């Protein structure tokens, strides 16, 4: 079986090694990236030459998604079409090895039961008789299938709370947390303020790691942010050096993790985001969350 193999090599160039495997919630995504020394020097010099600070506060936020675990359910039309295609393929297909074996065995049985059966001739043709016929194998396989109990598709029959990761297994979910921004506590994607000397992606990682009582292992996909949200502070808070804030979003996928149910986490589908996020924020966030 193709096991997830993750090669980790240390080279001074850009590297992108990731291996994602769909086995329930045991996502094993290993990722390693190492900046080249030239690139790091470039970013440092850039931050030094900016003597005048911009009036915008920078935040790095992470859009953590949990990929669907099972396949989505089909529409009635998709169902019908799938059935039709299956039937067409079956009618056009040729016999497989197993089916040919079945036919040969049945022919051999009828020949054995005929009156003019010559066992020496048969054995000369086929060599030694096989002890297990294809029909026997099929019967044993059917027996095994009866013993197999597939798990339930919908584990949240009773209605799991919104904070559970195992919510809708067929869709991809986004993590929302409740944080205090300014004076109010609102639901938003986990974010942290940027400090000098680190890349925005490291800010986003820090924001994710600093969530209390949460242990999410995420795989970031790249260094480039996928979205930006810019807003100005209300007049009374505005000073000379900070007019507003810009939030840069990074995408990441959940590889492993757990969270206690007490903390205010939410795993929501894209369609449910509307109920929790503020409209201007939602507008920007909606643009980069794919509804696949």
């Amino acid at each position, binding site marked *: 079986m*193709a096991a997830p193999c993750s090669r980790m090599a240390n080279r001074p160039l*850009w*590297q992108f090694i990731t*291996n994602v495997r769909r086995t329930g919630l045991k996502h094993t995504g290993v990722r390693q990236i190492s900046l080249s020394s030239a690139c790091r020097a470039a970013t440092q010099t850039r931050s030094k030459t900016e003597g005048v600070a911009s009036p915008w506060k920078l935040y790095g936020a992470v859009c953590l998604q949990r990929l669907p675990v099972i396949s989505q359910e089909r529409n009635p039309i998709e169902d019908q079409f799938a059935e039709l295609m299956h039937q067409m393929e079956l009618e056009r297909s040729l016999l497989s090895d197993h089916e040919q074996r079945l036919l040969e065995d049945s022919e051999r049985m009828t020949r054995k039961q005929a009156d003019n059966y010559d066992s020496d001739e048969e054995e000369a043709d086929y060599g030694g008789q096989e002890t297990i016929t294809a029909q026997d194998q099929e019967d044993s396989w059917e027996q095994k299938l009866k013993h197999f109990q597939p798990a339930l598709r919908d584990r949240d029959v009773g209605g799991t709370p919104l904070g559970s990761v195992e919510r809708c297994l067929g869709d991809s979910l986004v993590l929302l947390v409740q944080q205090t921004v300014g004076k109010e506590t609102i639901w938003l994607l986990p974010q942290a303020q940027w400090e000098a000397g680190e890349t925005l992606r490291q800010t986003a990682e820090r924001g994710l790691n600093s969530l209390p009582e949460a242990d999410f292992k995420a795989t970031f996909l790249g260094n480039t942010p996928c979205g930006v949200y810019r807003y100005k502070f209300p007049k009374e808070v505005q000073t000379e050096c900070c007019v507003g804030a810009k939030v840069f979003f990074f*995408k990441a996928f959940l590889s492993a993790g757990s969270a206690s149910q007490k903390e205010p986490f939410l795993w929501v589908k894209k369609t449910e985001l509307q109920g929790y996020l503020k409209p201007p924020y939602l507008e920007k966030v909606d643009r980069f969350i794919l509804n696949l």
Partner: protein
Amino acid sequence: MNPVIRKASFALHSRVLDQAGLLFRASVSVQHPIQGSLAFSNERQYRTMPTHGIGKYKHLLPKEAPKKKKERQQMKQIKTATDAEYGTLNVKVSGYDMILVEHYSQYIHNLCNRLGVKVAESYALPTKSTEVMVMPEQGTKMYVDAILKTHERIVQLSQLNATLCPTFMEVLLKNQPEGIQLSVKLHTEADYQARFKARPELEGLMAQMT
């Protein structure tokens, strides 16, 4: 009397013209071997026709080098990563169901074409068969339960833009079918050499030499 003389003179004139024509044509035909076209020796030459050689154009084209025999396959240069782009990446799709594996690899290839990512190569690795042996509760002899075949397809990308990468990876991950493993790695020379069959005689001779 006059017409007879006229005929004779006319005959003389025509003979002279013919000879002159022959000389002219001979000089023209001498040039043909220099041009090096052997076909003309096989064709019938209607040299008297004014349209003789009307379709000839090869003498107007620049000289082509003679066609070389197909050279031994060399490895394509493995590109290194720059600041804005990744190097040569191998996207490996593997699984038990060949239909899903092939369709998914075709989907990745088409997606790259659409997004403008250059696909260097797209090939398949040999199928690996795994025998699943089951040991019954009574007895020690294991018997073969099933044979599972693992199919692998590789799509090699050469210049993946760093800004495009997160979106590309997300689309790939969200469209991954059930039972398919996806893996993205850097392409190395060892990967390239692994595709070739081992040549034991050659290796034996090389060992003898050293």
